[in-house]
């Protein structure tokens, strides 16, 4: 897409998507986007943004009402909404996982920070205190010598007491230190175990990276192919003749599903229908009973089946109408060939 949509165009597109245009304006927009690639892309971008707002609950009541009408009207739009819902859920899951990992990492760091080792020796602190006291006493006048001597004696006794007390405390502190060191050792061992676990996780990550690279290579190959995987075939009622007249369905390797659209004759409507698919050789492939008539749209009954049900062969489909009293009658037969 080149350039920016001007405000007027943006408003017009918004009104188009919310079904608020007149018939004439609507025709003009339709004609414009069919013929102009850039305009079509603008419409897709605006619609995509509307899907985002719808899924994230960012619309006003009226906008939501209009968006509901658009996004709940068709399977195509429903798939767009589902894709964005899945994207938001996957992003949330990825973010939660990342945050959980970060919380665990932070917790480990906090545990390490709680261990504190004493920095200064209490014995040294006591010695410094005694020196300070002695220096103070030497500065006193002689008249106070006796008293000072007594005080000094008391102080010495007190100091000795403190020294012993300090030694006891030192022992206790050393014991505590030993306990703390043991704890540190345990934490280190725990850390080393976790580092080992992380390295195993790293190996797993490497392995997943390798797998991812392989997937990318395969995806690159697949990108050159058609991404859609549904083959569709419209079938009209037929008269059986093996060979001539049957439709040929070419299923290539990409086709995962086969969509069958049976044109149902509108002569006699029935409340329910049964469908039976067989090969011309008589092998039953698939059947379904009691299909309500409401599933017939525009005279067509649609089924999406796995393409693996249909190897190279000729097939016939029997459509039976079931009346209210349970009687069934063949309404139409169809035939097609699968060629791979």
């Amino acid at each position, binding site marked *: 897409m080149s350039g920016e949509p001007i405000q007027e165009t943006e408003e017009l597109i918004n009104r188009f998507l919310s079904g608020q245009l007149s018939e004439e304006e609507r025709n003009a927009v339709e004609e414009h986007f069919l013929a102009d690639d850039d305009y079509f892309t603008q419409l*897709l971008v605006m619609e995509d943004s509307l899907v985002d707002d719808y899924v994230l609950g960012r619309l006003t009541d009226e906008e939501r009402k209009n968006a509901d009408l658009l996004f709940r009207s068709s399977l195509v739009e429903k798939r767009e909404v589902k894709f964005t819902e899945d994207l938001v859920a996957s992003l949330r899951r990825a973010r939660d996982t990342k945050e959980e990992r970060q919380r665990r990492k932070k917790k480990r760091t906090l545990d390490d920070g709680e261990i504190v080792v004493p920095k200064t020796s209490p014995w040294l602190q006591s010695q410094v205190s005694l020196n300070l006291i002695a220096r103070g006493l030497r500065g006193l006048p002689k008249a106070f010598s006796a008293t000072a001597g007594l005080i000094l004696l008391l102080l010495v006794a007190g100091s000795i007491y403190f020294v012993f007390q300090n030694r006891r405390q030192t022992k206790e502190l050393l014991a505590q230190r030993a306990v703390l060191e043991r704890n540190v050792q345990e934490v280190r061992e725990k850390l080393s175990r976790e580092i080992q676990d992380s390295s195993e996780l790293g190996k797993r990550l490497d392995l997943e990276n390798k797998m991812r690279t392989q997937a990318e290579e395969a995806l690159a190959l697949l990108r050159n192919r058609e991404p*859609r995987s549904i083959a569709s075939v419209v079938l009209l009622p037929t008269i059986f003749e093996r060979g001539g007249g049957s439709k040929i369905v070419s299923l290539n390797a990409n086709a995962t599903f086969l969509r069958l659209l049976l044109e149902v004759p509108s002569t006699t409507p029935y409340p329910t229908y049964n469908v039976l698919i067989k090969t011309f050789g008589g092998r039953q492939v698939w059947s379904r009973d009691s299909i309500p008539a409401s599933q017939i749209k525009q005279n067509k009954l649609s089924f999406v089946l796995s393409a693996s049900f249909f190897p190279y062969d000729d097939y016939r489909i029997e459509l039976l109408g079931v009346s209210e009293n349970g009687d069934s009658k063949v309404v139409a037969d169809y035939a097609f060939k699968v060629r791979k």
Partner: protein
Amino acid sequence: MALTFVPGYSCADLMKTQSDSAAFDTLLQALEPEASSPHESFRRFRARLVRLFAWKHCEDPEDLADETISRLVKNIQSGQEISQDRPYRYVRAIARNVFREYLRAKEKSGIETDVDELPDLPAPEETEDCWTLCLAQLSPDKREFLEKYFLDSIDREQFAREKGLTINALRLTVFRYKAALRLCIENCIMRLSKVRN
């Protein structure tokens, strides 16, 4: 009317004669001049028709798009000439008829279809694995961009300013990231389901 739309083929493959095929290819070329191949032209052309019907609130727009293409092919086979100047006008006229018939059939049946009851493709069990894989393949800045856009309750205009983008450039960026993811998911599901089968 007998058509099969098979991946890997263009609609021209279904034409009865060489001249029909050439006529259809010429028409596709006129409709999608920027497409790199007839197959790409067909894919883009069909995508436009599907959206045309989806934006008209039709339950199964793919079905109506296929019906429109069927009629277009039939007209070419019957020798109708289509103006190369404004080919979309011709296509739109066919699409309008298909839409009118759809409305008439809907009105006649009197049944309001609930889209939740319509059959859909089964959700493959590989989807969640594929989302994890495809998100992991995004570069960290793209993943962070999408996380912030979808998970943080940040005002969209403020987010655009933070990223140095206009609001429309922001929309386009998200659209492109989503388109790349969609392609990755589709391919991944296809690949994993093949491996499992």
